[in-house]
């Protein structure tokens, strides 16, 4: 038996023994674990599952063991994911610690920074959020104005960030700040890590059209940053920040392991929902115009998923991937938005409820998921920005 087969057997056995039964049931929105000091667990199994997985480093399976990770190879990780998928085990914890700042520190952090921050991400002790956008710096991120002054021993940060996702739950924030106001806009930016547990940091949730408040405004008023929390070189933070954006886009577009399951599948796939709300006639969805939309979107999604797989295979087989993360971000979010719009059409007035008992919980969730989906083509670099990037970096079209 090969080592991988061995690994699979051991993993399967361990999961069967250690994954609590309730962690194999579908997760509702508020079952998703993000960790951090403020975390609460409505189901104690969730904490148990997190701790067990974290102890093996399997909350971050491919990170080095030295930093608390699982130290798995890509192949081993695929097996782990497969086996978790097999028993429908929930991902024990997710968040920007894992998808963004962790990978970025692995690329750009000092040994000291890795040792300080990564283990606390793995264990779920510290939850992170992202401080990039500002009211005047959205798509044009590099025009950010949050000021970071060198005070000798430490930095002092003043300014405002917006769209800091989950800031109300987070312990630390990674930010892009301006350290050199006179320099050209890309060259005076630094990447710093800020402890949010201090008086100089204030967080104010933003209510969205969906009624939820996943994002905040975060204000810095003489917030203090120790100098060892500068990542990369001073005034060279743009390089670090851009790399992190790639991790973000991979994550939004579902290129990471999240891609294994649809993002909006709370109610099942589009054909499932159509079968329920529209019904079949002679084996076909009864509304042929909607059926056409359903097949288009579903076929595009399948082609998209195949392309994600191809990208991974090309990477593994050593060829250069000839297409960019931006494509996945762009196509994935547009296809997802379209899917929700079709879902609305399928569900008719039953998909547009806001309050009242006339709608099931799933229907209420759909209305809000539809509205929230609109942010997928805005946040993390809008669709327009992704198309610009493809045109410039991949196609080489002139400015």
């Amino acid at each position: 038996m090969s080592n991988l087969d061995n690994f699979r057997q051991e993993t399967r056995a361990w999961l069967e023994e250690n994954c609590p039964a309730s962690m194999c049931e579908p997760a509702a929105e508020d079952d998703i674990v993000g960790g951090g000091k403020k975390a609460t667990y409505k189901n104690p199994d969730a904490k148990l599952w997190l701790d067990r997985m974290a102890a093996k480093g399997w909350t971050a399976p491919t990170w080095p063991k030295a930093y608390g990770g699982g130290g798995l190879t890509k192949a081993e990780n695929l097996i782990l994911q497969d086996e978790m998928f097999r028993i429908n085990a929930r991902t024990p914890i997710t968040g920007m610690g894992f998808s963004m700042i962790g990978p970025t520190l692995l690329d750009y952090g000092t040994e000291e920074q890795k040792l300080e921050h990564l283990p606390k991400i793995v264990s779920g002790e510290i939850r992170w959020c992202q401080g990039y956008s500002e009211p005047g710096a959205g798509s044009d991120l590099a025009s950010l104005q949050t000021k970071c002054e060198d005070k000798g021993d430490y930095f002092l940060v003043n300014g405002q960030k917006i769209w800091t996702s989950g800031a109300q739950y987070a312990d630390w924030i990674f930010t892009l700040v301006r350290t050199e106001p006179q320099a050209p806009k890309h060259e005076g930016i630094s990447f710093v890590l800020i402890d949010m547990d201090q008086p100089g940091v204030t967080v104010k949730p933003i209510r969205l059209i969906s009624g939820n408040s996943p994002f905040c405004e975060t204000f810095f008023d003489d917030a203090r940053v120790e100098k060892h929390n500068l990542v990369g070189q001073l005034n060279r933070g743009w390089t670090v920040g851009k790399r992190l954006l790639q991790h973000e886009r991979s994550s939004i577009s579902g290129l990471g392991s999240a891609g294994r399951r649809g993002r909006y599948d709370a109610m099942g796939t589009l054909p499932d929902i159509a079968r329920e709300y529209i019904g079949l006639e002679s084996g076909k969805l009864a509304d042929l115009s909607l059926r056409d939309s359903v097949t288009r979107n579903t076929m595009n999604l399948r082609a998209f998923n195949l392309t994600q797989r191809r990208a991974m295979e090309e990477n593994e087989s050593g060829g250069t991937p000839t297409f960019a993360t931006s494509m996945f971000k762009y196509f994935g979010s547009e296809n997802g938005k379209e899917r929700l719009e079709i879902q609305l059409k399928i569900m008719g007035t039953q998909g547009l409820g806001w309050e009242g008992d006339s709608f099931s919980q799933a229907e209420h969730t759909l209305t809000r998921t539809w509205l929230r989906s609109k942010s997928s083509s805005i946040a993390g670099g809008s669709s327009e920005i992704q198309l610009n990037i493809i045109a410039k970096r991949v196609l080489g079209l002139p400015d």
Partner: protein
Amino acid sequence: MPLVLNEEQNMLKDAAKDFCTNNTPITQMRKLRDEKNENGYDTGTWQQMVELGWTGITIPEDFGGLGFGYMGMGVVMEECGRTLTCSPLFATAVVGSSAILHGGTDEQKGELLGQIAGGELLMALALEESPHHNPYGVAATAEKSGAGYKVTGSKKFVLDGHIANKLVVVARTSGAAGDRDGITLVLVDSDAAGVSVTRTIMADSRNAANIEFSGAEGVLLGEEGKGADVLDKVLDAARILLAAEMLGGAQECYERTVEYLKTREQFGVPIGSFQALKHRAAEMFCEIELSKSVVLEALSALDEDSDEVPELASLCKARLNDTYNLVSSEGVQMHGGIGMTDEYEIGFFMKRSRVCEHTFGNSAFHRDRYGVLQGY
């Protein structure tokens, strides 16, 4: 049929614009929502609308109205659409009054139209039984009982159903769901025995109700079994006037977006200088211009009681569904992050557009109907 407004209609439009801008800006809708207002509209504002005569615009002078016609009501609806005004105007003074006008006996007209014009009577149409518009699909039954009818069945998505005094219930005296024949309209008081109303709040913060009828008594409106003749006329008027509202919403949303493109700066320039956004904005402009024309034509046709009303209603509703959907989605996207916030008003247009879209026929319904009416 004229595609331009006459002087009288232009004056009405200007007055409606003033009223809506000053008395029912979007902040009023937000307030009603946040306060969870039990009516879903502001009674003071409604009284002012009544005083302005809006409730009687489409009602002939003989019955206490202004006899201003649908074109007149269209310009008012359009302005209400711009400010997302919440009021019983549509359900009562478009849908309800047109049901009485087309289906009522002289006595019913004499009694009820004046009450509508006077703002004393609020009405609602209890039609749908599924999440999709399906006028002939009613399964609710009406049984003759003495001088009246007893109605039994479940109705969904009854606009203003929780505040209406009288309900026009679409029920069936014969045939099966799907048949055009056998449909009968029954006028039921909402406080009659056997009527149970559950208010429902939709994504656009407007009202709809689920209503259970269990042997509720009412009186006939129109002919027994021939209710579809009246219903079709009522629905076409409703579709066209709703499209007028949608036109107002689409225009307002679009104008705000173009304004934002001119003022919001990124990369050191207004984002409206980016050609990709320019082209999308210009394409929307075309869609809106085409939408204006179909709404005007359909309103004219209503006033002339033209044979083309059905096809124009479908042309109109399908186009406004698509245009409002497009413009409001692009509105949010072009506003970027701020467009996603509840604090900013642009998202309200998106919510409203989708509810309108599913009211009295989505685009697939109306394209199908248009094709059928044209013989293909």
